[in-house]
Every structure is written in structure tokens, then in C-alpha cells.
């Protein structure tokens, strides 16, 4: 009985599948040095940036696409991708009134009214639509504290030295195939700098959205928290429905200096493909942070979208007493494949890490947790606790766990717990008997299962994440 119901429930359509008719300025498909020069030129970049890109491109040419993730897909044709697309804008925008009304309507359909966001929640947003930032808000309040929060393009112009000093220090150009590609062709992203001792007074938020058909998105994000500062950064994504596979290869670098704390939260809902597994976004992301002395980086992610995901938000615990955390909910449905997890690299003394991973597999999907805990030779008294749970819905999906542990110091304490469970017919009937319909029952059970992770999200984001989980798993109950 429950399998049939689960089938129906998990067969609902992607709700954010629409595209916006905005005039775009797109370069023809293909990748070579000229395209990179063109991107750099269009963005009016300094010479060092172009050189950096070209160096990354050369590295990339010699690299191979990784085969080790537990996913199968047709490899993208990199010459068929267009590497730059910018919504045509007449001039710099001073306020929301000047933003294309069509674009504003898109945000409204997504439930992200900038006005509402500004008025109600005090969230400053740097909205990225197809590679170019079109609206930046709350700049003034932030500027008073000396906080820089802007698009990467602007940062390269205005804060060139800061960018140059830190870009590629956490994720080097040659780190992996997609990081190298991103380094060569990234078009935009966000930049954030919190000065010494400053506690950022609001959640910083960016919404990414792929909009142009066939346009690869290569976002680059750099967050720098100077000594003793604190910032909470939110990132959320939704993408319109497409037939062709769309490539998304972002790089996020976090730098937490001595005594600083960065909390980075993501809700990801890229188009997962249709009921037959056709289309959908390829999400190959490199996210990593480095912690200096007493610093803390906390990654929280709710991943519901994309056809194929590989993503391992990681922490390099370089400084003594630094802390890394990873809280993740990954939902796969239909034919989605996810290979996600984290790496906690303990280098400093008394470093601590916590990993809480909750996988949910439905439909014919495959969900893998892959995590590395490494304790270096000088990491005295390093501690890790990992908990990796898998929840299965139906009998055609798969859950896999690949934990790697490398301890080079005898004092290391590493704990790993893992469970696999199924939403039981018993649980659903119990809820039904109390008057709770099957769809609500599944939402209730799933939310309960993910609670430890959802609790880590900032309030306004937690609500959105809960909604997303429900949408990802809902359908009509027959």
C-alpha cells in the first residue's frame, strides 16, 4: 500500500519551472582563450585577473573530469556551452524601481519579493540572475560598519587588492576539474568582507537563478571574515525548467581569520529533470573554508534539486581550537543522483568537527553520502562526531554511505554513527488514524527526521526550507 502512495506523492512536478523573457546579451557557445578574454573585457577587468583566468584555463585543459563520484550522466560538451550571458541593462541601478518589472515578477513568483524581504526581515540581498548582479540592497547600513557586500565583478573593480590576496587561496585553480573551469570562466558571484571585530548585523543573502537556456553558470563567491568578526550568509537557488542539461560549477571560498565565525547556509532547488529523468541541472560545486586560530565555520545545506549533484562543503581546520560543522539534508527523487558530503581536515590542535548528514531518497533516485575526516600528524586532541542517516521512500531508490577516516595522531577521537530507515506504513497509518492525511504525514515525518539540520538554519530560511522539502516530496494522493 505505502509504496503506491509514496509513488504518487513523490511524482509531483517541479513548481518553479518557468522562464522569464528578459533580453540577454549572450556570447556564442564554445570555450577558448578568446572567449575568456572577451569575458574579462566585457567585465572591464584588470590584467592580473585575466592572467589568472588564462592560467586556470591552461590548467583545466590538462585535467580530466572526475569519475569517482557515485553518479552516472552524459558528460557535458564544453564547446556547446555559452560562457557569458548578462541581462541587458541600460545603466547602473540606484533602486528597485529601476529593475526590469519582468524580473521583479519572477522574484515574486518565487516568493522572493525584494520589497517584502527588505521590509520584513531586514535581509540584504545581492541578487544574481544569469551572472550579473542587478540589485544590491542595504549597502548603506553595511557600509557604516565597514562591511563590503557586493558582486564579485564589482569587488574586482573596487576592492581589487582584497580579492587578489584571497581569491584561490582556499580552493586553488588546479584543485579539481570544475574548480579550474570555474576559475577560468566565472562571470559573477558575491564578495563579502567583514572587518576586524565586526558582527554583521543582518543575514547576508544571495539568490542565484539560471535563466538563459544553455548558459553555464560559473559563480564565484568569496567570504572573508577578519579577526574576531561574525557573519551569517544565506544562499538559495531555484531554476526554471529546461530540456537540455544545464551546467552549474560554482566555487565558494570562506576565510575565517583568528576568532572569526562564518555561518553559511544554502537552500538549493535547481531543476531536477522531468519524471523520466530528462533534463535537469548538473551541479558540480566546490565549497571550502579555512579556519585560523579559534575560528569556526558552519555549513548548513538543504539540497532538493539538480539532476546530478556533487558537492562537499569542507573545512580546513588549520588554526588551533578551530571548529568545523556540516549540517546537511539532501533529498533525491525521480532519477536524481546526489553524491554529497564534506571533508573535515584537522591540522591544528584541539580542533573539533561535527557532521550531521540526513539523506532522503525517493522515486528511482540515488543518494550518496561521501565524507572524509582527516586528522593530521600535528592535530593533537582532534575530535570528530559524524552522524549519517538515510531515509528511504519506496523500494526503487538507493542510499549509499562512503565514510573515509584518516587519523595520523594517536589522540584523535573520531565517532561515526549511521542509520538507514524507511518511512513505514506503520508510521503513516498511525498519523492517518489521528486524522493526519498521508501527504501531511510524510511531510511531518520528513521534517522530524531533518530537524537537527533545519534547526541550524536562520528562522526565515528554515520556513522556506521546510516548504521546499514538502514541495519536493508532494503530489496528489489517490
Amino acid at each position, binding site marked *: 500500500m505505502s509504496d503506491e502512495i509514496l509513488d504518487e506523492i513523490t511524482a509531483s512536478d517541479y513548481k518553479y519551472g518557468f522562464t522569464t523573457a528578459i533580453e540577454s546579451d549572450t556570447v556564442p557557445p564554445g570555450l577558448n582563450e578568446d572567449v575568456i578574454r572577451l569575458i574579462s573585457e566585457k567585465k572591464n577587468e584588470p590584467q592580473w585577473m585575466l592572467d589568472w583566468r588564462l592560467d586556470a584555463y591552461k590548467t583545466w585543459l590538462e585535467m580530466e573530469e572526475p569519475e569517482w563520484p557515485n553518479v552516472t550522466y552524459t558528460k557535458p560538451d564544453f564547446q556547446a556551452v555559452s560562457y557569458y550571458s548578462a541581462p541587458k541593462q541600460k545603466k547602473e541601478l540606484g533602486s528597485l524601481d529601476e529593475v526590469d518589472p519582468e524580473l521583479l515578477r519572477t522574484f515574486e513568483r518565487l516568493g522572493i519579493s525584494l520589497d517584502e524581504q527588505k521590509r520584513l526581515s531586514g535581509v540584504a540581498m545581492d541578487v544574481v540572475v544569469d551572472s550579473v548582479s542587478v540589485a544590491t540592497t542595504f549597502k548603506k547600513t553595511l557600509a557604516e560598519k565597514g562591511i563590503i557586500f557586493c558582486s564579485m565583478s564589482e569587488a574586482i573593480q573596487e576592492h581589487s587588492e582584497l580579492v587578489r590576496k584571497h581569491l584561490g587561496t582556499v580552493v586553488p585553480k588546479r584543485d579539481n576539474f570544475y574548480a579550474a573551469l570555474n576559475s577560468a570562466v566565472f562571470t559573477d558571484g558575491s564578495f563579502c568582507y567583514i572587518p576586524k571585530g565586526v558582527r554583521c548585523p543582518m543575514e547576508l543573502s544571495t539568490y542565484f537563478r539560471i535563466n538563459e537556456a544553455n548558459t553555464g553558470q560559473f559563480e564565484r563567491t568569496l567570504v572573508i571574515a577578519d579577526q574576531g568578526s561574525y557573519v551569517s550568509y544565506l544562499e538559495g537557488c531555484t531554476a526554471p525548467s529546461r530540456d537540455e542539461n544545464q551546467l552549474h560549477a560554482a566555487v565558494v571560498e570562506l576565510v575565517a581569520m583568528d576568532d572569526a565565525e562564518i555561518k553559511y547556509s544554502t537552500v538549493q532547488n535547481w531543476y531536477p529533470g522531468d519524471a523520466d529523468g530528462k533534463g535537469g541541472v548538473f551541479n558540480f560545486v566546490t565549497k571550502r573554508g579555512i579556519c585560523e586560530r579559534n575560528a569556526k565555520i558552519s555549513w548548513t545545506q538543504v539540497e532538493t534539486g539538480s539532476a546530478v549533484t556533487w558537492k562537499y562543503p569542507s573545512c580546513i581546520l588549520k588554526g588551533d581550537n578551530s571548529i568545523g560543522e556540516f549540517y546537511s539534508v539532501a533529498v533525491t527523487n525521480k532519477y536524481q543522483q546526489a553524491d554529497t558530503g564534506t571533508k573535515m581536515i584537522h591540522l591544528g590542535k584541539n580542533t573539533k568537527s561535527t557532521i550531521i548528514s540526513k539523506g532522503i531518497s525517493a522515486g528511482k533516485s540515488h543518494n550518496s553520502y561521501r565524507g572524509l575526516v582527516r586528522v593530521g600528524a600535528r592535530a593533537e586532541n582532534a575530535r570528530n562526531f559524524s552522524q549519517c542517516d538515510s531515509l528511504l521512500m519506496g523500494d526503487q531508490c538507493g542510499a549509499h554511505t562512503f565514510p573515509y577516516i584518516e587519523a595520523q595522531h594517536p589522540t584523535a577521537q573520531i565517532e561515526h554513527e549511521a542509520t538507514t530507515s524507511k518511512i513505514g506504513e506503520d508510521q503513516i497509518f498511525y498519523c492517518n*488514524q489521528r486524522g493526519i492525511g498521508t501527504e501531511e504525514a510524510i511531510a511531518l515525518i520528513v521534517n522530524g527526521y531533518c530537524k537537527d539540520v533545519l534547526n541550524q538554519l536562520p528562522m526565515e530560511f528554515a520556513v522556506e526550507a521546510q516548504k521546499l522539502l514538502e514541495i519536493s516530496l508532494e503530489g496528489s494522493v489517490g
Partner: protein
Amino acid sequence: MIKINNLQARVEDKEILKGINLEINPGEIHAIMGPNGSGKSTLSNVIAGREDYEVTGGSIDFEGEDLLDLNPEERAHKGIFLSFQYPVEIPGVTVSNFIKTAINESRKGRGEEPMEAREMLAKMREKTALLEMDKSYLSRSLNEGFSGGEKKRNEIFQMAMLEPKLAILDETDSGLDIDALRIVAGGVNKLRTADNAVMVITHYQRLLDYIKPDFVHVLYNGRIVKSGGPELAHELEEKGYDWIKAENA
């Protein structure tokens, strides 16, 4: 309130209920007794609407409506409550969140407005006190790490919150020590009104010392083979079920 007429049901290929006839009126307490495997739990599951049980004949009329046409949650909305023999665990969902969802989904099902938060809170306080439960119960994950007794008490707490018309208590006494049994039974008695009814399913006389039935029925081999007043339960306690088995051999 409920009229069960010649009810037959099976699980997979096994015929379990072979023609049950039973009528329960508002204000009454009926005890269903019988040896293991006689069909007691099947009867409660069929009334609650569990899909694994296939009804092959007969009817159940609940306040003039054919119950068999309704899905389990609709039956709950109409006022049918089953206290489970083995309550399930739902990790991460607190007792208070669960009962709040149950009450408001039931209200929605009946076309009513959700209950005010203040009213809900007051009611939770009242009912936990009634069942001598510590308030910390409310913030624990539903049945997770609960002892057998706590699980049963939590079932009766939910019954108290939902105020059903017909409550079916399936082996609520199993796993309870004497003190817990007294509290649970006391709770059930206090919730009794002239408008609601209780069906108590049990092996033993023990629970019936606390919840006094108006009628006792003996279920054996898928049929009610004997009905009587409270004295029947005592007779069973003395003679054991072999007496029934011999009579129906």
C-alpha cells in the same frame, strides 16, 4: 453509534473475521475479550480502516454513515480513535507538535477553524495533569525512547486531546504496571460522557477492575461467541478460555 453487521475480513489469504455482529450506543463501555489469534486486533484495525485488512463482507455503520467508504483519516475526523497496542515512534516530531497537527487536521477535515494557540496550550496542560504526566512529555519526540507505560499513557493523552466519540483501546493494559494502569484507567473514566463510547480490547480481567464495562463479548475464531454483563469477565478469569474453546470446538 456504531453498528457492525456480519463483518468479515481477511489478511492476505487468511480469513480472520467470520461474521461479527456488534452494536455500541453512546455512553456504553464494551469489553472485547478472547484468546490470542481470535481476531481482536483485526477488528480494531478494520474499524480504524487499515488497508492491509480486506473487508470481504458485511458492513459497519457509524452514526448513519457507511464507515467502509471512508479512508482512515476521515474516520478519525468523524470521531473514531484507536489506542494502538504498539504505538510507533516518529523521531524529531514532538508530542505537542504531533497532537497539534492531529487536532488541526481533524478540524480542517470537519471544515472548522484551527484551534487557537492559547486554547491548545491550556488543553495540553489540563490533559497532562489529568494523566499525571510531566509537562516535559510534550517536548519529547513522539514515543521515541518511551517506556511501554509511557507509550500507553501517551495514547490516552492523545485520546483526551482529540475527544473522540468512539475510543478503541487495543490492549492498553499490556506493559503497564499497577500504578500506571490505575492512572490510565482513571483517565479513561474521567473522559467518559453520555455521548461517547469505549471499546476495550483485553486479554485479562485486570483492566476491567478499573474500567467497568457495561457489556462483555468473547471473541473466538473470528466470531463473537458469548456476550454478557461484567460478570462474564469474572467467569472467564476463573475458568480460562479453554471453556470457550471447548464449547465452540
